[in-house]
C-alpha cells in the first residue's frame, strides 16, 4: 500500500473506534466487495473494504475519478447491496446528496424541498416555513419558484443540498456537493455545514476532489485507491483547523499519495 506512509493513524478501517472523541460506529462496512455488471464485463468497484464511521463524525473521502466513492455512498444509503460482505446502516436511514442533483423535474425548487419534508412526516403548516429557511441557507430564495430546468448547474446543486438537509437524518452522505459552486459560495456553505454538524451532532460523510476542502472540513480524511477500491490512506485532521501551515502540509501529503496511486495505474 503505497499511500500508507502518508497516513498518520493505525490500520485503516478499524481505527476510528479507538480514536478519542469519536463515538461508536453508526456505519460499518465489513470486508465489503462490490461488483457491477455480469460475467463478461464485471467491474470490481470495491474490494474487501473495511470502514467504520463514528457517530457524529465528519469524514471526508478522497480518491481518483472512478475509484468507487459514489458506490460506497450508495451501499451505505441502501441503494445497492454488496456483492460480498456486510453493511451496517443507520437505523433511521441516511440522507444522500447525489453527485447529479437528482431533483424531481415535475416540481419546483420549493416543492422539491417540501416533498422531502413531507416524506419525513413534517406537518403541512411547518413545511413551507422550513423550506423557506433551507432555501435561504443555500442562497436560493430568489429561485424558490423555478423549475429544475430553469436552474443553473450550481443552483441545482444547492437545491439538492437543501433537499438533503430537509431529510434531517442522523447520517448525511454528500457526493461532491460543492463541485459546481464558486469559491465564495462554497466557503459560505462550508460554514453552514460545520454549524449544522456542530449544533445538531450529525454524522457526515463528505466526498470531494478538493484536497484542501477535505482537510479543512473533515475530522478524518480517507484516501481510496482505484481498481480495486480500498482504503489506502488515512489522516486525522480534526486538530489542524485554523493551523494553516499544518493543514497545507497534510494537503500536500494527500496530493502526493494520490499522485503515487495514479502513477501506479499509468
Amino acid at each position, binding site marked *: 500500500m503505497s499511500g500508507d506512509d502518508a497516513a498518520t493513524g493505525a490500520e485503516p478501517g478499524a481505527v476510528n473506534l479507538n480514536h478519542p472523541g469519536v463515538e461508536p460506529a453508526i456505519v460499518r462496512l465489513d470486508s465489503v466487495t462490490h461488483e457491477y455488471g455480469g460475467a463478461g464485463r464485471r467491474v470490481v468497484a470495491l474490494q474487501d473494504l473495511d470502514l467504520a464511521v463514528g457517530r457524529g463524525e465528519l469524514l471526508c473521502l478522497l480518491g481518483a475519478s472512478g475509484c468507487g466513492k459514489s458506490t460506497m455512498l*450508495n451501499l451505505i*444509503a*441502501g*441503494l445497492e447491496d454488496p456483492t460480498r460482505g456486510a453493511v451496517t446502516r443507520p437505523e433511521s*436511514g*441516511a*440522507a*444522500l446528496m*447525489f453527485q*447529479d442533483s*437528482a*431533483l*424531481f*423535474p*415535475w*416540481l419546483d425548487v420549493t416543492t422539491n424541498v417540501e*416533498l*422531502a419534508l*413531507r*416524506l*419525513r412526516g413534517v406537518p403541512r403548516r411547518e413545511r413551507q416555513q422550513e423550506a423557506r429557511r433551507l432555501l435561504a441557507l443555500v442562497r436560493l430564495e430568489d429561485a424558490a419558484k423555478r*423549475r*429544475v*430546468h*430553469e436552474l443553473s448547474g450550481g443552483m441545482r446543486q444547492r437545491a439538492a443540498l437543501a*433537499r438533503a438537509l430537509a*431529510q434531517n437524518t442522523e447520517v448525511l452522505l454528500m457526493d461532491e456537493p460543492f463541485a459546481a459552486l464558486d469559491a465564495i459560495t462554497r466557503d459560505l456553505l462550508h460554514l453552514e455545514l460545520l454549524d449544522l454538524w456542530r449544533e445538531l451532532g450529525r454524522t457526515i460523510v463528505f466526498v470531494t476532489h478538493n484536497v484542501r476542502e477535505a482537510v479543512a472540513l473533515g475530522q478524518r480524511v480517507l484516501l481510496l485507491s482505484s481498481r480495486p477500491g480500498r482504503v489506502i490512506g488515512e489522516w486525522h485532521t480534526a486538530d489542524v483547523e485554523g493551523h494553516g501551515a499544518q493543514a497545507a502540509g497534510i494537503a500536500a501529503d494527500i496530493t502526493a499519495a494520490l499522485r503515487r496511486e495514479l502513477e501506479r495505474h499509468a
Partner: protein
Amino acid sequence: MPETTTISRAEDGLDRLEQTSGDRPRIGRAGLRILAAPLPAIGAVAVMVGVWQLVFSLELQPPSVLPSPAEVAETAVDLARDGSLVEALWVSGSRAVVGFALSVFVGTLLGLALARVRLLRAALGPLVTALLAMPAVAWVPAAIIAFGFTDAAIYSVVLVGAVPSVANGLVAGVDTIPPLLHRAGQVLGARGWTMVRHVLLPAALPGYIAGVRQAWAFAWRSLMAAELIASSPQLGVGVGQLLQQGRTLFDMPRVIVAMGLVLLIGLVVELGVFGPLERRVLRLRGMALR
C-alpha cells in the same frame, strides 16, 4: 468570415407566437392562443373537404357511392333537426366518457401492480399486451351472456378493450423513468404508496399520457363495436348504430356523417383535453421546447 445574427424579440409578429410561446407563456395572449389552437386543424379539415369536392366533381364514382360534401351536410342538418345527431353524440359520448374513466381507473391500478410486482409482470404482462389485440366483437357474446342487453354489457366490452392499453402505457412510462429519480425517492424515504404517489406516477406521466391517449382510441373503437350488440330503444342510438344503419341501408351520407362525428369527438377530446394536458406537462418539465 464569421456570420452575424441579430435577433430582436420585440419584432416578433403574431406568426411567431406559436414558436416562442412554448417556454414563454404571455399573459393576455394566452386566451388568444387557446382560441387559435384548433385553427390549423380546421384548415386541414377544410383542405380535405376541398379535395373531396374536387374528386366528387370529377365524377369518378356515382353520387350514391361518393356523395358530395353538400349532400352529406344536408343529411347532417336533417339528422340534427330530428335530434338523432345530438342523441348519438350524447349516447356515445357519455358512454365513452364513463367507460373511459372506468378504464383509466382500473387500468392504472393494473398497470401499477404490473410495474411494481415482478412476478405479476412476468405472468400477466405478456397476456395484457396480447389482450390488447383482441377485437372488441370477440367479447360481445360473453358480454351478452353475462349481462344481457344492458349498458353493463356495453361497458364491459369497452373496459376489456381499453384497460390493457392504459395499463401498458403506465408500465411503459414507469419503465422509462430515469433510475436516478427512483433512487432519489428511495433516499427520501418514499416507500410503497408514497413512492408511487410522489415519484413513480409523476415521473411516468409523459409516457402515461401517451398511453392514455391511445386507450381513449381503444375505448372508443370498442364502444363502436359494443353499440352494435343490439339496437334497442332502451339502449339508445349511438354513433356506432348510426354508422351501422348507414352501412345497412347503403346510406353513404349517413355513413360519412357518422365518421364525421367520430372525427369531431376525437378532435374535441384531443384539442380540449389530451393536447393541452400534454403540452402543460411537457412544458413544466422543460421538454419538447424545440
